[in-house]
């Protein structure tokens, strides 16, 4: 039956964050993973040079904004997907939504704190 009360759902907020995160990681994640996870530990970029380079990158305003986006946006995208994936696998429990997006919010706050205090 069609319910007559069409209460508006708050999904657009999370969907917008999911969209921003998805687009951001689609564009930047492969390069970022390549640099951080492979070029640095495999020694393609010298350790001391990497340290100095990263330090000066994170000191600049654009660098801070980029770093924050690179950390926080994919988390919102990812937690949105995990939340819906759990629904797909019929995992339902009270507070699941709060847990997923709460975790994303906490990690985002940590990232903001780190970036600002750099």
């Amino acid at each position: 039956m069609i319910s007559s009360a069409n209460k508006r759902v708050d999904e657009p907020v999370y969907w917008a964050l999911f969209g921003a995160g998805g687009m951001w990681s689609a564009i930047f994640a492969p390069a970022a993973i390549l640099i951080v996870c492979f070029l640095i530990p495999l020694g393609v970029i010298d350790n001391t040079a990497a340290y100095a380079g990263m330090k000066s990158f994170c000191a600049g305003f654009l660098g801070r904004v980029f770093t924050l986006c690179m950390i926080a946006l994919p988390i919102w995208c990812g937690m949105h997907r995990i939340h819906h994936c759990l629904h797909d696998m019929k995992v339902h429990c009270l507070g699941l939504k709060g847990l997923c997006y709460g975790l994303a919010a906490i990690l985002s706050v940590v990232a903001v704190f780190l970036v600002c205090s750099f």
Partner: protein
Amino acid sequence: MATKRKPYIREMNSDWWRKLPYYRFYMLRELTAVPAIWFSILLIYGLSALKQGEASFACFVQFLANPIVLLINVVALMAALLQTTTWFTLAPKVVRLSECCAYRAKIALWGITGLATIILLFLAL
């Protein structure tokens, strides 16, 4: 007369997505989220190590060089590439575009990604 109707409702099991290749690929697409979050947490770790000085940054690099971590990161890179591919296939559909415009939008998105990759690599090397 009493009705002889007795509609049969098929229960949907939680493993429904294993039944068709299309559903399996959808699940794979959605689960790229897990390595993506892993990389974000890795960045948080790296950033705090960077803040604490050269010694703890060296510790972070050593952690990254661990074969198990490297292996996880190979998966993360492949997941990121799959996410890029699927995202650029699906994103043009969200905006109302004609078929040829959607194709051009996809090419443009790949161009932006290529450019961003070159700039980031240039900054890093």
